[in-house]
């Protein structure tokens, strides 16, 4: 249907954008962009998100063409990186070209250093989310420059950035008052005073991951609980072996909206504080990981099972004192458990009877880990004539690898 009129001479850019918005497929969008330079410009500036894994040689061109991109994903997989991958000069281009950027993902871009981060801090004042997990060369110097330049920062992920110290926490406290998510897993230099300093300025934190920050103790957690109070939804303290009941009691006191708590490996925690937690967070708690908390007994576990009505994932592996008695309360329970994931590996006193009670009151179970439980075997299940809930995967003595269950993410 050829025409004597030319659409570009009649419709405005905005009207052509409206038409572009109605094209569903990538293929059509691509064809649209190849029609003429005006249409290429409209298509490119409509683009809000870019992800690229094939090498950054085109980055400068991308910045020129897709100037209104808001989200840029240059993350690499841990195992397969393109050599040399993203380097500082690429960050210079990004800081200069993608001025509207709000989300930048550089996970596993191991080549970048502080120099690149300084440029990011100077250029991207609208940045809200930055992920530099496993960018191991980064130090306080570069990251503080980001804190100072990107005051709108809401989410910062620094997993594996082991050179980070309390100095960065101070910079965040001073500059980034909207911070909601902070990932510091493996940043072993972080201390209690750093955390106290952090939450002085950052009181809206919803998600705090200090897994394996082994210097952290009750002092730091107390500060976080009190300052972030009802904002705090997720707290991860894996292997923070110094913390004890005082930390849990502070959560009881201040953090009524806690949904995810990871205290695996925190051996000092006892029944008393966990029972309090079960009570205070009975509506909010969804994910609880307390493997290797060897002091825990039936008393605390039964409180958790009976009171936390929204619990979806529970890990009590290696809690060797736990017995079937903890599950007795399930027998008289009216409402179904909403549990999806239960890990009781290495709990030698639990028997099939307990699992039977669980299956009875829990239809939503998707994954059950009973590895190294000598009294729980496949044969035993068959003998007892137990019915697994539909869709439930059961891991006996290493019959499944954890990676088979990749889709179940709650207990990280």
């Amino acid at each position, binding site marked *: *249907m*050829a*025409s*004597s*009129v*030319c*659409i*570009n001479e*009649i*419709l405005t850019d905005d*009207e052509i954008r*409206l*038409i*572009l*918005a*109605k*094209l*569903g*497929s990538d293929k*059509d969008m*691509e*064809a*649209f*962009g*190849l*029609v*003429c*330079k005006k*249409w*290429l410009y409209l298509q490119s500036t409509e683009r809000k*998100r*870019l*992800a*690229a*894994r*094939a090498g950054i040689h*085109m980055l400068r*061109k*991308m910045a020129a*063409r*897709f100037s209104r991109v808001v989200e840029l*994903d240059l993350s690499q997989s841990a195992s397969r990186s393109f050599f040399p991958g993203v380097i500082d000069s690429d960050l210079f281009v990004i800081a200069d070209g993608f001025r509207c950027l709000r989300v930048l993902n550089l996970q596993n871009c191991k080549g970048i250093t502080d120099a690149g981060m300084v440029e990011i801090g100077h250029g991207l004042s609208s940045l809200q989310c930055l992920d530099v997990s496993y960018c191991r060369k980064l130090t306080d110097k570069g990251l503080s420059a980001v804190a100072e330049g990107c005051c709108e920062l809401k989410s910062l992920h620094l997993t594996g950035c082991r050179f980070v110290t309390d100095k960065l926490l101070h910079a965040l406290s001073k500059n980034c008052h909207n911070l909601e998510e902070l990932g510091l897993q493996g940043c072993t230099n972080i201390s209690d005073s750093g955390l106290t300093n952090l939450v002085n300025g950052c009181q809206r934190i919803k998600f705090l991951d200090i897994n394996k920050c082994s210097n952290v103790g009750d002092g730091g957690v107390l500060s976080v609980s009190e300052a972030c109070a009802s904002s705090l939804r997720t707290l991860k303290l894996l292997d923070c072996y110094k913390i004890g009941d005082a930390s849990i009691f502070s959560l009881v006191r201040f953090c009524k909206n806690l949904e995810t708590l990871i205290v695996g490996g925190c051996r000092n925690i006892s029944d008393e504080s966990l029972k309090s937690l079960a009570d205070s967070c009975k509506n909010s708690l969804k994910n609880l990981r307390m493997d290797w908390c060897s002091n825990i007994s039936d008393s605390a576990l039964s409180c958790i099972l009976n009171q936390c009505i929204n619990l979806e994932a529970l890990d009590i592996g290696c809690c060797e004192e736990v017995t079937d008695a903890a599950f007795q309360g399930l027998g008289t329970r009216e409402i179904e458990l909403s549990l999806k994931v239960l890990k009781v590996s290495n709990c030698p006193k639990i028997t099939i009877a307990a699992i039977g009670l669980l299956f009875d009151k829990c239809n939503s179970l998707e994954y059950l880990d009973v590895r190294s439980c000598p009294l729980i075997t496949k044969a035993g299940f068959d003998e007892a004539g137990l019915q697994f809930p539909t869709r439930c995967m059961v891991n006996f003595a290493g019959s499944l690898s954890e990676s088979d269950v990749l889709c179940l993410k709650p207990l990280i």
Partner: protein
Amino acid sequence: MSSSSSPMQSTGRKLKLKSKDDETFEVEEAVAVKSQIFKYMVEDGVSNGPIPLPNVNGKTLARVLQWCQKHADPTITEDELNKYDAGFIDVDQAVLYDLLMAANYLNIEELLKLACMRVADMIKGKSPDEIRRTFNIKNDFTPEEEEEVRKENAWALGP
């Protein structure tokens, strides 16, 4: 115009509109308010004299009002409406663009959607060259430039 039990139509109030080439139209409020512009005017109790519409010519305005009339009719079924729309928008490009621009200017959401969808349908499934021919657009890329863009497209993934 026709008798009906709809409360809006029983007010019987009419709006006077004047196109850019000085054609005047009288239209019932219930029909006119398909356009958000007129809706606000009616709600604000505005207008005694005819409302001037310097961006729309008489021919296009007549068509648009016809569409509004059909869409304001409470007795018409959805199926009938869809059939009507399909026929209504099957026009040559010059008329189509006039309708699109008028719907945009008068803020008539459904009509704008209809017109844009029609143009989009003329683009879908076509190669860039076919699209150019359909819309009479000159290719201002050099072959090298076009090759560059194709390379860049292959590189940039994501939605």
